[in-house]
């Protein structure tokens, strides 16, 4: 099975809009929404959920008031300001490291598991979809991303589906690392703005670091055609393939408003360009008989 992951570095460059279009154009691929902080792909693909489960990860320290002798050792060793002077634990600050438990002479500290999110399996008209939502202010989004990808892959394999489309999160931190590792191809979506280019470079470095082949797509390219050219030159020097660029198009927010993949909303400029991008990606994914390179764990 081949996996395409769409990332961007900077948020709001159009990842989800593109993945929605790719899903419609591919027809019958498996889908994974790995932006577990702000999952939005479901708003375009409308999965019918038939399985849902809690995601348990990480821990929080709990101090038993009865056995606590208020000796203060936990307060001394905690590096996250999670133990309050009144010897309770501020859950938002607690990393669940258990240093307090190591030093507590009264064995008053217990580590309790957290419910950090929820994940869903559902069917869309375009194929099976797995997505998840981190509970507000929780940690371990990287692990939740790994779970979403694992579940989506397993489902695709069960049904003999040859392609997994993964919608990645913005940034370059743990959830992105968890989304990218071991994928067959990463599409980095950028925009011709100084921020977009700054973040593109960081996202490409990340792909190189984890040895995932990357292609670049410039969205809203006509906002600054000279930066679009600059991206192309930069990528040519770095030997990274660039897809057709996508123009700024007011249909995009309208399609999102209607809850439709752009390519099903109209056949305007951005819609047509998205289709061209997809055919280039498909060629790269299906044509390239590249061997899976050994991955590095993050």
């Amino acid at each position, binding site marked *: 099975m081949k996996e395409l992951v769409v990332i961007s570095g900077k948020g709001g460059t159009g990842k989800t809009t593109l993945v929605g279009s790719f899903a419609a154009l591919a027809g019958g691929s498996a889908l994974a929404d790995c932006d*577990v902080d702000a999952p939005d792909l479901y708003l375009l693909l409308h999965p019918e959920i038939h399985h849902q489960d809690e995601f348990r990860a990480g821990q929080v320290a709990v101090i038993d008031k009865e056995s606590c002798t208020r000796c203060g050792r936990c307060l001394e060793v905690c590096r996250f300001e999670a133990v309050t002077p009144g010897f309770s634990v501020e859950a938002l600050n607690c*990393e669940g*490291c258990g240093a307090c438990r190591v030093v507590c002479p009264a064995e008053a500290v217990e580590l309790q598991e957290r419910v950090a999110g929820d994940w869903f399996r559902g069917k869309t008209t375009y194929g099976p979809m797995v997505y998840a939502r981190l509970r507000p202010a929780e940690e371990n989004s990287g692990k939740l991303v790994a779970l979403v990808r694992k579940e989506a892959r397993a489902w695709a394999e069960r049904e003999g589906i040859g392609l997994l489309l993964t919608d990645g999160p913005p940034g370059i931190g743990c959830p992105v690392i968890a989304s990218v590792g071991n994928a067959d191809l990463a599409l980095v979506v950028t925009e011709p703005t100084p921020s977009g280019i700054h973040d593109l470079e960081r996202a490409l470095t990340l792909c190189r670091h984890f040895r995932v082949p990357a292609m670049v797509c410039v969205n809203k390219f006509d906002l600054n055609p000279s930066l679009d050219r600059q991206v192309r030159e930069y990528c040519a020097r770095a030997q990274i393939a660039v897809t057709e660029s996508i123009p700024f198009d007011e249909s995009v927010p309208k399609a999102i408003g209607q809850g439709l993949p752009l390519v099903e909303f109209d056949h305007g400029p951005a819609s047509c360009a998205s289709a061209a991008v997809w055919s280039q990606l498909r060629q790269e994914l299906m044509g390239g008989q590249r061997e899976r390179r050994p991955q590095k764990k993050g």
Partner: protein
Amino acid sequence: MSAKPVLQIAVASGKGGTGKTTIAVGLVIVTGRCQLLDCDVEEPNAHLFLHPALTRTEKVTLPVPEVNGERCTLCGRCAEACQFHAIAVMGRQVLVFPELCHGCGACSLACPEGAIREAPREIGVVESGKSGKIGFVHGRLNVGEPMATPVIRAVKAQRNGERLTIIDAAPGTACPVVEAVKGSDFCLLVTEPTPFGLSDLRLAVEVMEKLAVPCGVVINRSGEGDEATEAFCATKQLPLLGRIPFDRAIAEAYAHGRHPVYAVPELGRQLEQILDRALACARGNLS
């Protein structure tokens, strides 16, 4: 309280690309005197518009264990204590996986032989300086490093508290946002009037409720579809601090590396109004 308290205002959003940085930097420009902390350490961008002279660089490190093989008896207490599987006893040696280490010190506390020493490992940098009268600080997580929060903490440690502090947070609803917004007097949530924007706004509001940081909403690229966002704000009793209309001129100025306030004067007035409302809300909550 006699003196006016110095406020800390955060700018956040669930969804990426809604215009957090544009608005945070815009607020900084219209105020003129304040300190900006760019806490989006995965993708810091505010410097691209403010062009600060960065005069100080500090490394951000995490303390990771180093095991003294002569003292170590391979008892395995360190591995037992570590909740992140960052240290393990394999055969006759102890292995450390630095990327997994949170720097909590539990292993060295658990070691009965005093065989674990902690050594700093660099995961990013904090750079600071000035752009005119604006104090500027940002953090930069090294590419390939998973943990952003220690870098965010280091950026926030540079707050001088002499004047208004504006924080540009990372997108999302997870630990980096929590770390950035925590302790602020008020948070401005930037959204866009699409189902994506609204879905992510709902999640962001839940984070603010958990953090007990009062918040208000700014609708960016306002125009079609504002009603759903307005209805949500009304049911949640969230102040709608302002709207910035959809305008291609804003997007083009941004794309050319110019802050849109310089290209669209009306935007400056809107931002002033938004800031005034945010400050009034923050002060109202304090008294």
